[in-house]
C-alpha cells in the first residue's frame, strides 16, 4: 500500500529539508564552486595558458591511454574470476573470492610500492633469489604499461563484483533447456550466458575506467619517476609549485577529469540502452558447469594469479621493510627490524597518521551513518521526483575522482567562512567534510537496501499505537536495519582509512593521514619505513575484512561485496 504509506503525516517537518540542505552542502555547493572557478578562468582568459600548456595534453593522453589499457586488464582478470567462481564447481570459492577482492581494499600506493619492491634490479626479493635484473636495467613498472597493469590489478575486483551480480540472476532453466537439447557447454556459454552477462561486463568496465582516471596513488609512485603525468598527478604537482594562478588552473584540470569520468559513464549508459535483458525464470545459476578434469587447470590458474597479485607483492613489501639499507640483499644475517621499530616507536608522524586516519574514518563512518539512516528512511518512503534527484546528487561526488572533490572543497573553504570567520583549510575538518561528501553514497547503499526489505506495516502499526517518529526509529527501524548499518560503517571505515587522493591535497601539519604518510615516506627516500607502514596497513585491512566476514551471516544479501 505505497499510497497509504507515502503520506508520512507524522514525520517531523524538518526531516526532508534537513536532508536537502545536507546534500546541498556536501554535493551541490562544492561542485558549483568548482564550475564557477572554471568559468571564471575561462572568462579571464587565463584558460588559454592552461590549454596552451603541452603538459595538459600530455597528461590527458596518458590518463586516457593508461585508463583504457588498465580497464582491459581488469576486464580480463575480473571476468575470468567471475565466470569461474560463479558458474562452475571450482573448489574453495569463498576463500578465492575473499582474496580476490582484497586488492580493492588495499591503498593503491601500497600496491604500487609492493610491486616496485617485487620487480626491477632493486627487488630485495629477487636479489635474495639471485634473479634480479642487471644494474641500470630500467624498472619496468615505471612506464605506461606498468601503470596500466597495476590499474588492472587494483580494479579487477570491481569488474568481478559487477559481473557477478549479473551472473547470480541468470535463469537456470534457460541453461537447462539448452543442455537438454544437446548444446555443448561452450555453446551454452557463448549463446546464453555471454549475451546475458554483457550488462555486467559493461558496467564493470565503466566503473573500472572511471576509477582508473581518478587514481592517484599508482601514477604518483610509478609515473612521476618516469615523467609520466596523468591528470590527477599533474594537479598534485601544480599544487606543489603554488602560484597565484594555481586555484584557477587546477579547477580547469579537475573539470577535464570530471568530463572524462562522465563521458565514461555515458558510454556505459549508451551501450546498455536499447537492449532488453529481462529474463524469466528461476535465478541462481550456481554451478551451471561442472569443470570435470578442467578443474585441475582452472583452480591452479586462479591460485597462481592470486599469488602474483597478492602474495608475491606482499612478501616483497615485507622484504623491503626488513632490509637494513638500499641495495642490500635480504638474508637472515642482514635482516633488521629497524624500520618497524622506527615506525612504531620513534616516528611521531606514524602515530599522528594512525590517530588521524582512524578518527577521520570513524568520524566519517559513524557521522554518515546518522545521516544515511535519516536519508534512507526518507528516500525510501517518499519516492517522488525530488527525492530521486536528491538520491542522484548523493551519488555524484562518489563517482567523481577524489582529486576533483578535494579541489572543490579547497575552493569552498580556502577563504575563512563568512560570518563565522573560521578557516577550515589547513585543519582536519576540511578532510572530514570532503570524506562525508565522497563516501555518502557508500554509506547509503547497504542501508537503503535494508530499508527496501523492511515491511512498512511494522512501523505503521507502531504509528497507529501512537509512537512518535524517534520512538519508531529507535525501537523498530534501527534494530531491523542494524546489521546493514554495521556493514555500512565498516565499509566506509575501510575505504576512508586507506584514502590518499583527497587528503594528499588537503593535509597540513598534524593532519597527515596514513595514505599521505606512506607517500611522503617513500618520496623522501625512506622506502623501508614506507614499506613497514604499508605492511601494518595491509594487516589492518585484512583484519577488518575478516570482521565483515564474521558479520556476513546476519546481513542482507549483497552488502558484503565478496560474499554470494
Amino acid at each position, binding site marked *: 500500500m505505497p499510497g497509504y504509506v507515502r503520506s508520512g503525516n507524522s514525520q517531523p517537518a524538518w526531516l526532508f529539508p534537513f536532508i536537502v540542505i545536507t546534500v546541498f552542502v556536501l554535493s551541490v555547493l562544492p561542485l558549483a564552486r568548482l564550475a564557477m572557478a572554471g568559468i571564471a578562468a575561462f572568462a579571464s582568459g587565463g584558460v588559454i595558458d592552461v590549454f596552451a600548456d603541452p603538459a595538459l595534453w600530455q597528461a590527458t593522453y596518458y590518463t586516457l591511454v593508461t585508463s583504457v589499457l588498465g580497464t582491459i586488464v581488469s576486464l580480463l582478470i575480473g571476468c575470468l574470476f567471475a565466470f569461474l567462481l560463479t558458474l562452475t564447481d571450482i573448489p574453495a570459492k569463498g576463500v578465492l573470492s575473499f582474496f580476490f577482492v582484497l586488492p580493492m581494499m588495499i591503498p593503491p600506493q601500497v600496491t604500487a610500492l609492493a610491486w616496485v619492491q617485487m620487480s626491477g634490479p632493486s627487488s630485495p626479493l629477487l636479489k635474495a633469489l639471485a634473479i*634480479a635484473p642487471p644494474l641500470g636495467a630500467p624498472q619496468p613498472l615505471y612506464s605506461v604499461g606498468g601503470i596500466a597493469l597495476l590499474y588492472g590489478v587494483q580494479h579487477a575486483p570491481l569488474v568481478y563484483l559487477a559481473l557477478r551480480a549479473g551472473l547470480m540472476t541468470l535463469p537456470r532453466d534457460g541453461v537447462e533447456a539448452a543442455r537438454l537439447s544437446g548444446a555443448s557447454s561452450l555453446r551454452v556459454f557463448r549463446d546464453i550466458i555471454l549475451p546475458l552477462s554483457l550488462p555486467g561486463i559493461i558496467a564493470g568496465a565503466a566503473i573500472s575506467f572511471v576509477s582508473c582516471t581518478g587514481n592517484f596513488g599508482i601514477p604518483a609512485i610509478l609515473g612521476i619517476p618516469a615523467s609520466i603525468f596523468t591528470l590527477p598527478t599533474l594537479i598534485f604537482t601544480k599544487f606543489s609549485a603554488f602560484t597565484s594562478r594555481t586555484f584557477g588552473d587546477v579547477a580547469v584540470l579537475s573539470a577535464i577529469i570530471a568530463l572524462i569520468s562522465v563521458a565514461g559513464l555515458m558510454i556505459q549508459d549508451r551501450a546498455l540502452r536499447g537492449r532488453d535483458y529481462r529474463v524469466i525464470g528461476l535465478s541462481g545459476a550456481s554451478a551451471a558447469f561442472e569443470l570435470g578434469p578442467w578443474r585441475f587447470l582452472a583452480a591452479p590458474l586462479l591460485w597462481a594469479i592470486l599469488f602474483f597479485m597478492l602474495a608475491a607483492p606482499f612478501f616483497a613489501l615485507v622484504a623491503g621493510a626488513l632490509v637494513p639499507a*638500499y*641495495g642490500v640483499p635480504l638474508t637472515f644475517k642482514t635482516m633488521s627490524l629497524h624500520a618497524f621499530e622506527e615506525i612504531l616507536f620513534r616516528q*611521531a608522524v606514524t602515530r599522528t597518521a594512525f590517530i*588521524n586516519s582512524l578518527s577521520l574514518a570513524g568520524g566519517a563512518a559513524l*557521522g554518515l551513518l546518522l545521516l544515511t539512516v535519516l536519508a534512507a528512511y526518507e528516500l525510501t518512503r517518499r519516492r517522488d521526483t525530488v527525492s530521486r534527484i536528491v538520491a542522484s546528487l548523493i551519488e555524484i561526488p562518489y563517482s567523481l575522482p577524489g582529486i576533483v572533490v578535494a579541489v572543490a572543497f579547497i575552493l569552498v573553504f580556502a577563504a575563512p567562512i563568512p560570518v563565522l570567520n573560521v578557516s577550515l583549510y589547513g585543519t*582536519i575538518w576540511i578532510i572530514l567534510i570532503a570524506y562525508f561528501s565522497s563516501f555518502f553514497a557508500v554509506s547509503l547503499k547497504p542501508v537503503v537496501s535494508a530499508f527496501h526489505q523492511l515491511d512498512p506495516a511494522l512501523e505503521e502499526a507502531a504509528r497507529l499505537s501512537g509512537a512518535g517518529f524517534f520512538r519508531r526509529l529507535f525501537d523498530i527501524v534501527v534494530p531491523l536495519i542494524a546489521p546493514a548499518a554495521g556493514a555500512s560503517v565498516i565499509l566506509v571505515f575501510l575505504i576512508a582509512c586507506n584514502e590518499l587522493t583527497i587528503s594528499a591535497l588537503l593535509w597540513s601539519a598534524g593532519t597527515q593521514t596514513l595514505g599521505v604518510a606512506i607517500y611522503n615516506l617513500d618520496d623522501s627516500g625512506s622506502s623501508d619505513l614506507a614499506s613497514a607502514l604499508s605492511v601494518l596497513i595491509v594487516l589492518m585491512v585484512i583484519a577488518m575484512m575478516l570482521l565483515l566476514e564474521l558479520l556476513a551471516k546476519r546481513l542482507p544479501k549483497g552488502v558484503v561485496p565478496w560474499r554470494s
Partner: protein
Amino acid sequence: MKTIVSAAALLAASLLAVPAFAANLVLYTSQPNEDAQATVDGFMAANPDIKVDWVRDGTPKIIAKLQAEIQAGNPVADLLLIADMVTLERLKEERKLLAYKSPEAAQYDARLYDADGYYYSTKLITTGIMYNTSAAMKPTSWKDLTKPEAKGLVTMPSPLASGAALIHAQTLAAVPGLGWDYYKALAENGAIAAGGNGAVLKSVALGEKAYGMVVDYLPIREKAKGAPVEFVFPSEGVSAVTEPVGILASSKNAEAAKKFVDYVLSEKGQEGFLKLGYIPARNGMKLPEGFPARDTIKVLPIKAAEALKNTDQDLKTFSGIYGSN
C-alpha cells in the same frame, strides 16, 4: 536505542580525539623524516614544556603549501628549516619572516646568517656524485657523467622538487666549462631529473641507475649501513646549501620559535646534526664519519642575490631541457 547512543558516543569520542593543533610549535622542514624526528626529539628533550609538530616535504613543495595557506588566510607553520638561503631571502623580501638576533650567532661565520637575523644556516650540505659500486666507471669529475659509459645511467633530483637541486643547477650553470650546455649534454646522454634527493639515492642504491647527483649525507650514511654506494666530491668542486632556519612573521608562538632557533644553533643542537651525518655550520665542530677533511672539500661559489633574481628563468631553462616535471 542503545546502539544509537553508543554510536553517538563513539562518534563524539572519535571527533574529540582529533588533535586540533595541540602542538605549541609547528615546524615545516625538508629534512628526511628520521632526521626531522631526531631534531624535534632533541629540542623537546631540552625544552620539555614545548611540543613540536612537524611537516616534511621537499623545499619547493613546503613553500607551495605555505603560500597556499597564506593565500587562504591560515598559515600553520611557525618555523622553517629548509634547504637553502635563497628561498628564505625571498620570504624575507616578501616580509614573511620575523627578525630575531640569536646569541648563538657569534659562533658562526658571518656569511652563514642574515645580518638582520631573519635566517641562520644550520649545516653544510654539498651536492656531489654517488655511484653504485657495481658500476663500471668510477666518476671523478662532473663531466664523466656525459661519457658514453654513463649513457642512460644518470639520475638527478629535479629543482622543482628540491631546493638543494635548484641551487646545485644554478651553481653548475655559472661554472665556466659546464653551464647549461653541460645539462643539455647530460640530457642527450639519457640522464633523467625527477623527484627529490631521496629518489636519487634509492634509484642508484637499488641499481636502477648507476650514477646520481645527490646531497652528500644520504649516500655516506647508506654506505655506513652497508648499501653498495660510494660518494665522490668531483674535481671541479661541489655546490652547497646550508639548510637555514627562520621564524615566520605570522607565528603565534614567536617566543618558543626563538628557543628552537637557539637550540639548533647551539653546540648541543649542532652535535645532533653531526650525529645524523651532516657537516655542522657552527665553528669548531668535528666532521661526521665518512667525510674527507673540511679544507679538502672545494665548494663552488654562488651569488645568492643573482640566483634569487634568476630563479624563475633558471627553472624554465631546466624544465625546457628535462620536461615539465
